[in-house]
C-alpha cells in the first residue's frame, strides 16, 4: 500500500490542473473572446438555472447568447446575466406574446434582442465567436444539439443523460472524436474535490474499506404533482409540435416520457450509477432490475407517465480495481424522501465509505477487525470518530452493534473552506472552462459518460426483460 501524504495528493491534483497531460483540450486553448471565454447557454429550465448559478460567479465568462424556446425562462436567464455579469446576451426563443417585456432594457442596450427562435439560429449567428456552449435542454435534444455545435467548432458542456437513446449518445461520442472539440457531460461528482479525495486517497491509497464487496446507493423523493404552468405562458400548439412535444403538460414533464427523457432512474440514478463504476474502476457485467408506475394516472386509470416512478436494481461487477467481484444495489423512489437523503455507500470488510454531495451525510464506518485508524486520524487523512453514533442499544445478542462513524479531515485537499462554499455543480463547470482554456483535462468526457449511459439503459431494459416472475404455485407445497 502506498504511503499517503497530502503533498502527494496535491501534487497529483496540481499536475492535472496544470494541463501537463492534455489531449484535445489543448486544441481549444485559443479563446475567441480575448480575455474572456465566449459562451452560449441553451436550455434555461431548472437544471439550466443550477448551472447558471455557477456561471455567473465566473469573471472570465462572456455570455454571447441564451436560448430557450420557452420565453419566460429565456427572459429570466437574460435578466440574471444582465444583473450579475453586466452583459447583454442575444436571445433565442419563441415569442409567446407579440410585445417583448424587455423592450425598454433592449433600447437602453442592457439586454440583447430576440434574434431568432432556436439553437440553429443561434449557431448560424454566433458559432464563429463562441468558445463553448452549455446545453441543459430535455434529453432528446442533447444529441442533435451537441453534434451540431461540435460540427460548428464549439466546445460543449452537456447535461446528462447524454441522450434518450443509446444511438444518440454514441453519435455525441463520435462527434467529439471527429471534431476534436471538448465534450463534457454533467456528472458533476467527478469534479467534486471530496469525491476525488475519497476515490484516490481513501479507497486506493489507504484501502480504508478493505475489500469492497458491495455498494448501496439511493435518491428518494416524495411523490409530487406534475409540474404545471401559468396559462399566459402557454406555448402555441403548433410550436410545441414543431419542437417534439405533444402538449404543454408533456413539455413541462418531459422527464417521464419515452422519446424525450428517461425517468427517475435516468435523471437521478445516472449520477450515482456513474459513481459506482468510477469508484470501483469497473464496468458492471450484469444487472437485474424492477420498477413500477404507481402514481400519475389518467382519468381511465392507465399510466399518465411512460417511465417508472420507483426503480430498484442490482449491478454485478466481476473485477473491481481491487480485482474483486462486487454487487451494487441502487434505488430511486418517487414515493418518499425518507431513507437518509441521497448517497452512495462503498462497503468493505474493514470499513464503509458513505459518500454524498451533502457533506453532512458523508461518513466513514470502521469495522472492529480493521487496522487501527488512529494513525490515519493523526495524519489528517480522516476526521475523528463519533463514539456517540455507535451508542445504540442492541435489542438482541445476535444484532450487530452500530459502528463508530468518522468524518473526513477538517480540510480535504482542494476543498479548503473558501472552495467548500461553492455550489456543488461549480467544480465541474470550472473544470470544463479550464479545459477550454487548456489548463485542465476534462473530468467527465463523453467516452467516460457513455459508460454510465450504457449501464442505465441496460438497467431500464432489465426492468422489462430481466426479472423472473413468481407464480402463486411457487409458494405452495403440493400434496
Amino acid at each position, binding site marked *: 500500500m502506498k504511503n499517503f501524504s497530502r503533498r502527494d495528493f496535491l501534487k497529483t491534483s496540481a499536475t492535472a490542473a496544470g494541463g501537463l497531460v492534455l489531449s484535445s483540450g489543448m486544441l481549444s486553448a485559443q479563446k475567441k473572446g480575448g480575455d474572456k471565454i465566449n459562451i452560449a447557454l441553451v436550455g434555461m429550465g431548472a437544471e439550466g438555472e443550477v448551472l447558471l*448559478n455557477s456561471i455567473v460567479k465566473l469573471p472570465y465568462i462572456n455570455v454571447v447568447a441564451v436560448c430557450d424556446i420557452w420565453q*419566460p425562462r429565456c427572459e429570466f436567464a437574460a*435578466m440574471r446575466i444582465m*444583473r450579475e455579469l453586466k452583459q447583454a446576451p442575444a436571445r433565442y426563443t419563441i415569442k409567446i406574446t407579440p410585445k417583448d417585456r424587455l423592450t425598454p432594457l433592449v433600447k437602453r442596450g442592457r439586454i440583447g434582442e430576440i434574434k431568432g427562435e432556436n439553437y440553429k439560429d443561434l449557431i448560424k449567428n454566433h458559432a464563429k465567436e463562441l468558445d463553448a456552449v452549455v446545453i441543459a435542454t430535455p434529453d432528446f435534444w442533447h444529441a442533435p444539439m451537441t453534434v451540431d455545435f461540435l460540427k460548428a467548432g464549439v466546445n460543449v458542456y452537456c447535461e446528462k443523460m447524454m441522450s434518450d437513446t443509446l444511438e444518440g449518445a454514441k453519435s455525441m461520442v463520435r462527434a467529439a472524436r471527429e471534431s476534436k472539440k471538448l465534450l463534457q457531460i454533467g456528472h458533476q461528482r467527478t469534479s467534486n474535490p471530496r469525491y476525488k479525495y475519497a476515490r484516490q486517497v481513501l479507497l486506493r491509497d489507504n484501502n480504508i474499506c478493505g475489500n469492497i464487496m458491495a455498494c448501496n446507493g439511493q435518491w428518494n*423523493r*416524495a411523490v409530487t404533482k406534475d409540474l404545471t404552468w401559468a396559462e399566459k*405562458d402557454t406555448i402555441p400548439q403548433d410550436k410545441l409540435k414543431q419542437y417534439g412535444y405533444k402538449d404543454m403538460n408533456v413539455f413541462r414533464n418531459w422527464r417521464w416520457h419515452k422519446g424525450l427523457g428517461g425517468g427517475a432512474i435516468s435523471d437521478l440514478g445516472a449520477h450515482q450509477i456513474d459513481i459506482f463504476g468510477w469508484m470501483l474502476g469497473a464496468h458492471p457485467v450484469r444487472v437485474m432490475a424492477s420498477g413500477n408506475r404507481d402514481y400519475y394516472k389518467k382519468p381511465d386509470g392507465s399510466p399518465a407517465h411512460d417511465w417508472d416512478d420507483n426503480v430498484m436494481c442490482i449491478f454485478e461487477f466481476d473485477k473491481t480495481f481491487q480485482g474483486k467481484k462486487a454487487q451494487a444495489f441502487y434505488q430511486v423512489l418517487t414515493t418518499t424522501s425518507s431513507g437518509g437523503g441521497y448517497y452512495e455507500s462503498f462497503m468493505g470488510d474493514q470499513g464503509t465509505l458513505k459518500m454524498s454531495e451533502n457533506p453532512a451525510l458523508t461518513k466513514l464506518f470502521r469495522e472492529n477487525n480493521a487496522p487501527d485508524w488512529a494513525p490515519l486520524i493523526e495524519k489528517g487523512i480522516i476526521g475523528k470518530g463519533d463514539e456517540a453514533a455507535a451508542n445504540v442499544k442492541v435489542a438482541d445478542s445476535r444484532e450487530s452493534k452500530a459502528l463508530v462513524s468518522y468524518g473526513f479531515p477538517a480540510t480535504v485537499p482542494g476543498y479548503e473552506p473558501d472552495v467548500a462554499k461553492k455550489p456543488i455543480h461549480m467544480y465541474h463547470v470550472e473544470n470544463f472552462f479550464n479545459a477550454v482554456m487548456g489548463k485542465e483535462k476534462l473530468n467527465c468526457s463523453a467516452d467516460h459518460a457513455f459508460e454510465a449511459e450504457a449501464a442505465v439503459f441496460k438497467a431500464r431494459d432489465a426492468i422489462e426483460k430481466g426479472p423472473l416472475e413468481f407464480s402463486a404455485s411457487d409458494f405452495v407445497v403440493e400434496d
Partner: protein
Amino acid sequence: MKKAIIALSALAVVSASAATLKLQVPSAQLSGTPVPIVLDNLDTYKGPQKEIQVPDGVSNIAKGKQVTSSDDFPMIGELTLVTDGNKDGAEGCYVEIMDGVQWVQIDLAKSSEIYAIAIWHFHSQERAYKDVVVQVSDDPNFKNDVKTVYNNDHDNSAKLGKGDQKAYIETNYGKLIDLSKTPVKGRYVRLYSNGSTTNGSNHYIEVEVFGK
C-alpha cells in the same frame, strides 16, 4: 353566535358583527429533492394557518391593486402577479425580484383598516425567506407614520430594526399575519425580504390584505 349565509372570497361570515377568516389555500406543489433549511430563528411549523375572527365586511382589499417595487424590472414575471388572486405555485405564477433587501408595495387606493395580511412567497420548494418585514403607512415613501406589523429580522441585517418574530417555512398554506386584535390603518403595505435559504432572490406569488 348565529351563522350567516354570506361567504366572501376568503371569509366565512359567522355573525352580523364578526366573521371567521380562513385562508383559501392553493394545492401543494412541491418538487425536487428537499434542501436543508438552516436559519437561526426558524419556526419549523408547516401546517395550516389559524382561523381568526375579523369584523363583518372585511375582505381582501389588495386584489387587483397596483404593486410597485424596489426592483422595477423583475427577473421573471410581473409585479401584477402579487395581487392577481392566483396562489398557484406553478412556473409563471410568481414574480422574482433581485437579490438583497428588496420590497414590494401594494397601493390599496385609500387608507383602510387592516386586520390581517397573508403572504405566499414561493411554495414549490420548502424554504424560508430572510428578514421578512411588513409595514403599513399612509406615506407612499414610508418615511412617516410607518407601522411595522411583522418583523423576523432577528439580527437587524436589513437595517429596518430588530424583530422578534420567527422566520417560517414556505408552504402552500401561506403565512397569516394576525392583526385582528390590533388593527392598523394605512393606504400602503410594504413587504421586505432579503433572499431565502435557497438563493438570494426574492419571490412573491400572492399577497392578500384583509381590511375595509
